């Protein structure tokens, strides 16, 4: 039985209260919007690519603790990484979110992202945690459409 601590761990609450990279970039090369209207989450993501590398990244918006913390921690995790590395991280994050109940996660590979491992026990909240990642994917692909994970 999962308890609330699995969802609202210290790191998540800290990022919710003090989100990192919570700013608009004036010199972004890629941007995208994400929204889960049913929840009332909305997110604007700004990415500045230098060649194939994410040189800078920032986000703005409103959302629940999980979506905000996820966006904050994601920006830290992908800053300085190549596009392929960011995509690989997203895949690992997604696998963690959709893994069968009771399965352990590879903390070494996921690093700080592992704090979201407990979200998988709260199926309706998975979409909150993945919104930022889907928005990043859309920004890098330059689809220009608002992303939703609902």
């Amino acid at each position, binding site marked *: 039985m999962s308890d*609330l601590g699995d969802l*609202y761990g210290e790191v998540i609450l800290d990022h919710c209260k003090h989100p990192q990279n919570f700013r608009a970039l004036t010199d972004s090369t890629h941007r995208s919007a994400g929204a889960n209207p049913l*929840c009332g989450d*909305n997110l604007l993501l700004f990415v500045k690519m230098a060649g194939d590398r994410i040189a800078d990244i920032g986000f703005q918006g409103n*959302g*629940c603790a999980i979506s905000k913390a996820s966006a904050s921690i994601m920006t830290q995790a992908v800053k300085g990484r190549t596009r392929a590395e960011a995509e690989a991280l997203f895949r690992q994050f997604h696998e963690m979110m959709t893994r069968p109940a009771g399965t352990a996660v590879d903390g070494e590979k996921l690093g700080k992202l592992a704090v979201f491992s407990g979200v998988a026990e709260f199926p309706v909240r998975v979409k909150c945690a993945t919104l930022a990642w889907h928005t990043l994917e859309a920004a890098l692909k330059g689809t220009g459409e608002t992303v939703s994970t609902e």
Partner: protein
Amino acid sequence: MTAVAPAPAKPLAPSAPDWARIRADFPTLRQTIRGKALVYLDNAATSQKPQCVIDTIRRFYEEQNSNIHRGVHLLSEKATLAYEEARLKVARFIHAPDSREIVFTRGATEAINLIAQTWGRTHVGRGDEILVSQMEHHSNIGPWQLLRDQTGATLRVIPMTDAGELEMGEYEKLLSPRTKIVSVLQVSNALGTVNPVKRITELAHRAGAVVLIDGAQAVAHQPVDVQDIGCDFYVFSGHKMCAPTGIGVAWGRFALWDSLPPWQGGGDMISSVSFEKTTYNTVPLRFEAGTPNIEGAIGLGAAVDYLTSIGMENISKREQMLLARLEDAIRRVPGARIVGTAREKAGVASFVLEGIHPHDIGTIADRDGIALRTGHHCAQPVMTRLGIAATARASVAFYNTPEEMDAVEPALRRVIEVFR
């Protein structure tokens, strides 16, 4: 079976119902959620079902199951009678003068679509205006946008105040000879506001417009008399009033229904068919193409009997008491703000907690067994108007208890504790 005979004497509602016994009628409420007693406060989304409704549906399948309006065999006759008896019960429940005016639909949403596509397509044209309010549920916006796009009509919106009341002065100004229909809800699912539907109807009629009242959030919570309201159409869903999902009602004045073309084609809605020409059936079957939700209608009839046995006045009084207690509990929580403070409210307490997203409130309250709804409640224009993304919503039914209202305060305090 047409004209509705006056109900056989006043319903024998006890003056002081035994609420503990009534609560025991609801099997779902007996469970625990993660070891905590379930506190079900999502009644505006759907109500729980009493044992008698569940039993009626089971009995239908065990003893009466057959198609209706078709067979000459006894079973079909029984099923048809039960289905038509449900129509009569519903007519009595909302004080419709004629049971033929009750059209069964899948729910309030389908009922509004039916009216928009039959009455609307017949009477609304380019340059005409359709009037809805700022606080409508999406189900009373979407069907009119479809009609607008099909006809070139204009959709106009009655504004509301910060408290969540309709601006009646603005409403009067919006009414004109171009206004063809006014479609507003009786009770707001997002804010709990009770709208002055009688006055709204009177003003619309003065301007020559037809009136549709969406009673989805009203019909289970107060006595409804469509003749007293004076409206032309009244719609609601069964599942919010102790009946199963997938059954709802579109009531309309007989002369209006009778003048309208069918919406969907199929069996039951015709009287004779050749490939050259089909003659349509009379009202209401003209609007009930195909085998309908028979168990749903019969279940709805049982729910009407159940609610009537308690008495809608009693239910209304009980829920007013519960709502006041619920709002008091919410107000005692630091940083809590009730959204929707209309003078007249029913059943719904929407609220926000400062700095905490409603979704987090919902998840944490659920750990205490408290079922809340969070989000925009299918009323995004309400959220936009009030400048918020979402609210948490607690909504009551007569089977809730005063103690459950009190339990909301400590639960919300625990939410704040998590984020401290």
